[in-house]
């Protein structure tokens, strides 16, 4: 299918979760006869069960189809699917970088949501042509005209340009295909002979190793080429080149403007970086394509095996599972840690909260492991007094690693731009929530008659604590939010140490804002008190900053721990019972002679009512 550059269209579909992105993609494939009706399988582009279950796409893939437009000309349409969630913002932006256009899907009854806005802003920033699409017009609650006005109001895209469709019935699909051919621009011309192709995704395949998705901007890629990854500075030889149509189809070469995949005996995803530029080793480009960044882990937590046998098999099982998971997902990091309280485990870094949830679920589901997860923390930039009076910046993502406050000059934390879409009646509550969570108000915009979009800057640490749950709770589920990390800013942050029976417990330490420290400390101690059994002695629970106690709770000593009867016939049973009880206690972690059940370490995670 030799097609000139003028007739190639590279585009993505972007949408708020559940607004029908994947269904629309499938419908487009069907309309272009890439798949027969019989073959049509829901959400063809999503490959993992977990993604399908959660209605999100985690990994991008690209599908190429041929389409004969109304004018009789044949076009090559390259669908580049993007992960919908902001945790994968960087991956989304790389996928968009491979496109000239984006279809922005908005549910015709739900309207513009926070994620719609964030994704649209990303597309704008890449200078993409956007076609707004109002989906699900077949539903009884659809309000296409009103929602088109919202799109104009909030995103500045003309209401009249919105194409009403139903991915379910197929209504409006021909119009959309025409618009794709007519309105999306063709790829730019090749700037020279030196090949430059952008890696916008990579997946791991058990049989072929890493399959790398690329968009060729300049020059060509051919089977047998020795290629160089410019960022990682590594070379490989292309053994296989192809496209998904959506069946896997081999091609001899990929020219300017085309997208496809290559296989090059790459063993792990760690050897490929999304956003990197591929060039030819024989005639390398001088400069890579702009915009490459290494994946940045923003949320950290520890994973420990929930069970532990003496030989450490559970830890080894977890290690093996983590290594396998990393083959599929190079954007999370892990390193072994040892906690006095929880034993051996791993400190893991994630792009965001959803990414963390997905990793944990995949470990439990695909590897049949039970995991204890500690409270997530964000990555702080800490300015400390260095040698010779020169200050240096270190990264801290474990409260226990924070140096002595005397050494700390400044703690900077990640701040997010947060878009919140909320029905008018909840605005007061949301304002209060945001101010409680150290948010800085930026702007407010009317969305239709019933909703407003609020923009705040909110510290990521507050978002991962309980912001989203609270937002959903306060708005009866109607509020939506999305965020992207915008900057680091210093604030009066402190480390709270938790002392049980006067001994600090590292695994329970946390970093939080000074003004919220007393409240946070108190809540945590109250939760701990419920988790720890009464002992023979009174147990003080304390929260402290530096040496100063800011909150205190007490677990009263139990007063009576004695069986009433112990006669001749009771001796054996009684002895065995006492031994069994003792063993039960031994399984708990003991700190300062206090037996602490594992659940207590999760108490910091609990975001229930305070």
């Amino acid at each position, binding site marked *: 299918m030799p097609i000139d550059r003028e007739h190639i269209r590279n585009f993505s579909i972007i949408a708020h979760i559940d607004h029908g992105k994947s269904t629309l993609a499938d419908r487009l494939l069907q309309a272009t006869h890439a798949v027969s009706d019989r073959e049509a399988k829901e959400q063809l582009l999503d490959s993992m069960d977990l993604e399908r279950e959660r209605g999100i796409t985690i990994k991008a893939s690209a599908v190429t189809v041929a389409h004969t437009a109304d004018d009789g000309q044949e076009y090559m349409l390259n669908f580049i699917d993007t992960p919908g969630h902001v945790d994968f913002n960087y991956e989304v932006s790389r996928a968009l970088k491979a496109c000239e256009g984006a279809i922005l899907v908005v549910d015709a009854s739900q309207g513009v949501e926070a994620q719609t806005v964030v994704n649209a802003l990303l597309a704008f920033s890449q200078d993409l042509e956007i076609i707004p699409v109002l989906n699900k017009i077949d539903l009884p609650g659809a309000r296409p005209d009103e929602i088109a006005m919202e799109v104009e109001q909030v995103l500045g895209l003309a209401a009249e340009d919105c194409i009403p469709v139903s991915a379910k019935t197929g209504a409006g699909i021909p119009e959309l295909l025409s618009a794709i051919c007519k309105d999306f621009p063709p790829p730019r011309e090749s700037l020279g002979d030196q090949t430059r192709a952008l890696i916008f995704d990579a997946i791991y395949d058990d049989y072929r190793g890493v399959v790398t998705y690329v968009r060729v901007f300049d020059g060509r890629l051919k089977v047998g080429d020795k290629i160089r990854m410019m960022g990682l500075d590594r070379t490989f030889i292309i053994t296989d080149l192809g496209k998904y149509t959506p069946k896997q189809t081999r091609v001899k070469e990929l020219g300017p403007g085309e997208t496809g995949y290559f296989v090059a005996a790459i063993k792990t995803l760690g050897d490929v970086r999304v956003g990197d530029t591929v060039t030819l080793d024989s005639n390398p480009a001088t400069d890579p394509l702009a915009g490459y960044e290494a994946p940045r882990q923003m949320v950290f937590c520890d994973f420990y095996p929930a069970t532990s046998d003496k030989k450490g098999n559970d830890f080894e099982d977890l290690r093996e599972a983590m290594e396998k998971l990393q083959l599929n997902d190079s954007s999370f990091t892990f390193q072994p840690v040892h906690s006095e309280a929880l034993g051996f485990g791993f400190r893991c870094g994630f792009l965001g909260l959803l990414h963390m949830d997905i990793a944990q679920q995949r470990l439990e589901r695909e590897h049949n492991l039970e995991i204890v997860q500690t409270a997530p923390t964000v990555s702080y930039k800490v300015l400390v007094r260095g040698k010779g009076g020169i200050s240096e910046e270190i990264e801290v993502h474990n409260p226990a690693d924070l140096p002595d406050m005397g050494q700390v000059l400044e703690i900077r934390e990640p701040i997010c731009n947060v878009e919140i879409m909320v029905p008018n009646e909840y605005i007061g509550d949301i304002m209060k929530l945001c101010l409680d969570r150290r948010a800085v108000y930026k702007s407010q915009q009317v969305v239709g008659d019933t909703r407003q979009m609020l923009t705040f800057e909110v510290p990521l640490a507050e978002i991962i604590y309980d912001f989203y749950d609270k937002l959903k709770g306060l708005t009866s589920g109607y509020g939506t939010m999305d965020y992207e990390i915008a900057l680091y800013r210093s604030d009066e942050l402190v480390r709270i140490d938790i002392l049980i029976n006067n001994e600090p417990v590292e695994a329970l330490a946390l970093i939080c804002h000074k003004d919220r420290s007393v409240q946070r400390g108190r809540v945590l101690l109250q939760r701990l008190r419920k988790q720890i059994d009464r002992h023979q002695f009174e147990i003080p629970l304390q929260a402290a900053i530096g040496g100063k106690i800011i909150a205190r709770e007490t677990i009263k000593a*139990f*007063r*009576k*721990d004695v*069986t009433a*009867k112990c006669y001749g016939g009771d*001796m054996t049973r009684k002895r065995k019972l006492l*031994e069994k009880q003792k063993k039960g206690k031994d399984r708990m972690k003991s700190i300062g002679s206090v037996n602490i059940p594992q659940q207590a370490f999760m108490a910091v995670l609990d975001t229930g009512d305070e």
Partner: protein
Amino acid sequence: MTTPLQQLKSTSTAPIVRQLLDDPELSPVRCLYIHIPFCFHKCHYCDFYSLVDTRDRQQPFTDRLGQELAALAPLTQNQPLRTIFIGGGTPTLLQPALWTQLLRTLDDHFNLAAIHANDAEFSVECNPETASPELFDILRAGGVNRLSMGAQSFNPRHLKTLERWHDPKSVPRAVALAKTAGIERTSVDLIFAIPGQTLPEWDADLATALTLGTTHLSCYALTYEPNTAMTARLKRGDFTPTDDDLEADMYEHTVKRCADAGLDRYEVSNFAAPGHECAHNLAYWSQSSWLAAGPSASSHLLDPQGGGWRWKNQPRLDDYLHQNDNGHPRAIDLEPPDPSRLLSEQLMTAVRLREGIDLDQLLENTNEPTANAVRRVAADQLARGCLQESDSRLRPTDSGFLVADGLAREFLSVL
């Protein structure tokens, strides 16, 4: 009920008894327990095999018991018995004629010189409703010098909660009858922390018991034993168990109230005037040897080579009647002697006793690392104020009595 598994694991103890008798080092056994399995009604919380209409079985039982007693008697080497305790069940349900037969059997096979001289203790558990001058005269003539009255409570509401159906007024009557018969020592059993019971109600029970002029009280916090009706009702949510703090208050009140009346706590749940402690129970708690006869009765026999044998007679009356190996019934839960287990048992009971334990003597034959570990636990608990040391014995303090199980767990964990 005996499960098939228990049947399978049952064993004859005749060879063990023979082996002990052949050992020239064997010390004479000086204590005897007899279990009478008959009851008024089939109690929901009791796992013994018992029948309401037992008249036709009482005779064969008494005969069979006589054979077992005869088989056990050589272990006393004809030394005078120091204690006999006849419990149940409801021993006083046994017909007077059979009591006469049983007491004669005892006289025939055992040396009761000390008992008849009132220098040794012979206790019988008594349901107050069964008290009669005739029965008590027979008991006294047979050497019985101590009665333990199962009162449990004097409050009809709480008796009902416990599924006890006797008239509370029968208790003072029974105590008076005992005195008249010349049985000088009586003890009263009470239960506290009954669901719904208040501290003043418990105080009233205690006051009533103390006015009876008995020299011994056993006060048990209600225990929810597995597989009993009480526990099932608790799990069903029929009632709320007594709050931990209230139970502790009731217990501390008991200790004080008894002390004021001259009854000192000598074990967690037992209070006595000086010299009126139950010698038989003290024998249990000091891990002495005792013989045990009757279905479900548990024996403990110290082995001259160290450690002690423990076993429990088959609990089913039918099995007891029909299994007979030279007088011995089959036994279950047999535990051969194990000095380390004996050490555990000694420490476990010592922390419940006023007389405590002489640690140096106890650890005389224990290896150094274990002895040191035990001493470390003792030192910890001394420092914590749960144990105290006097006359070279370690004893629980007031607060130690309250957490005796915790103390026992600490000791067991190093053994």
